[in-house]
């Protein structure tokens, strides 16, 4: 694989994480627990979708086959998406949504901070823009995690259960494969080991304030990076792509 192909694939991973998580949050529109949270989730989704557009547009240009953001989002099959399994997990109840958000955004912010200094100018620019938005996500969701954890007995029990359910998807965030090595060695990009250490520390601090226990070391699920998704993914993709598949070439 040449460098352009590697960078394109790396960008698609980032775009896919943003798109799929954005899509999950869009499902909460008109279904949020209260109006302010609905606005918050809609705003987060908009941030992710904007970032997905930036990653996809760049990937399309590098690929040079005439594919653009819409082709990547609406015309790829499930196996072609390379997002983490964590972001495709269902919204569940509010605690599940918040835990998923904190676990992912804590990683994403660390990644973006390092990518903002990398050797690819355009990728660095996108990361610099995005990290400011993700800081707001993390602040908002961490505060909710603390309220839910250090809340009533029921809220703590429920959100601890969310943590136990989602923890097995966190290992995948720190996997180090050929694309990560390429970005690190050729572009001065992030070091997954260092990101993992910082992530552990930040998550531990929030969990402590939330009076929640960090789940023990355990078997970690993986497969997102090779396009092997969980049973939830097919439904998400079907709903997301339905209009474009039913009316090919449809545009607003």
């Amino acid at each position, binding site marked *: 694989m040449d460098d352009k192909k590697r960078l394109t694939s790396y960008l698609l991973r980032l775009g896919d994480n943003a798109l799929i998580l954005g899509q999950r949050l869009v499902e909460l529109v008109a279904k949020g627990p209260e109006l302010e949270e609905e*606005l918050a989730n809609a705003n987060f989704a908009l*941030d992710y979708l904007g970032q997905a557009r*930036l990653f996809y547009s760049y990937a399309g240009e590098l690929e040079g086959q005439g594919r653009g953001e819409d082709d990547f989002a609406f015309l790829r099959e499930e196996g072609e998406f390379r997002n983490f399994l964590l972001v495709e997990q269902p919204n569940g109840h509010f605690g599940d949504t918040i835990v998923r958000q904190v676990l992912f955004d804590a990683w994403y912010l660390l990644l973006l901070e390092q990518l903002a200094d990398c050797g690819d100018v355009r990728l660095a620019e996108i990361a610099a823009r995005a990290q400011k938005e993700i800081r707001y996500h993390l602040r908002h969701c961490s505060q909710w995690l603390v309220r839910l954890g250090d809340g009533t007995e029921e809220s703590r029990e429920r959100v601890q259960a969310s943590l136990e359910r989602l923890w097995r998807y966190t290992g995948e965030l720190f996997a180090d494969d050929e694309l990560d090595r390429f970005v690190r060695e050729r572009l001065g990009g992030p070091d997954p080991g260092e990101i993992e250490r910082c992530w552990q520390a930040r998550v531990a601090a929030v969990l402590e304030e939330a009076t929640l226990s960090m789940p023990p070391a355990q078997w970690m699920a993986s497969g997102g990076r090779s396009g092997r998704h969980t049973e939830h993914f097919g439904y998400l993709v079907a709903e997301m792509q339905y209009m474009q598949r039913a009316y090919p070439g449809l545009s607003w």
Partner: protein
Amino acid sequence: MIPDNKPDRAARDRIWAWLADIPDPEIPVISIVDLGIVRGVSETDGGVEIRLAPTYSGCPATEVIERTVVDTLRHKGLGDVTIRRVLSPPWSTDWISADGREKLRKYGIAPPAGSASKSELLGPLRDIACPRCDSRSTRLVSEFGSTPCKASYKCDDCLEPFEYFKCI
């Protein structure tokens, strides 16, 4: 035509004045120049290039603003008008002019307080003055409002809700 680096100041100032008449589509009392979105103007073969900084990654107004800039300048007879999106350095509320901040406040939106530094974004919330009665007895209702750039507040003195333009 009229590049930034040539001494034809009157012509350059004219373009900037036209751009200063283009309002933000969401907050029409403030212009795209007040917001710090316009990063530069330069000459191209047969026209001008306008460099614009998008505010948020997902801001839905970005394309509307670009189209409006093209339409406005073409209407003024400037020939070929191209837009270049400048992502670096990333747009910051620090770039909003003092005039722009005052216009926001008069419109009923509390302007960004403090700077857009990292410590500010992760630190404790500041006291925001109510844009109507200037009281500092205000409280955050939600970090997010009608648009991604604004938060929802309420004033405990005059009891009116208002929006706050967040630092970023």
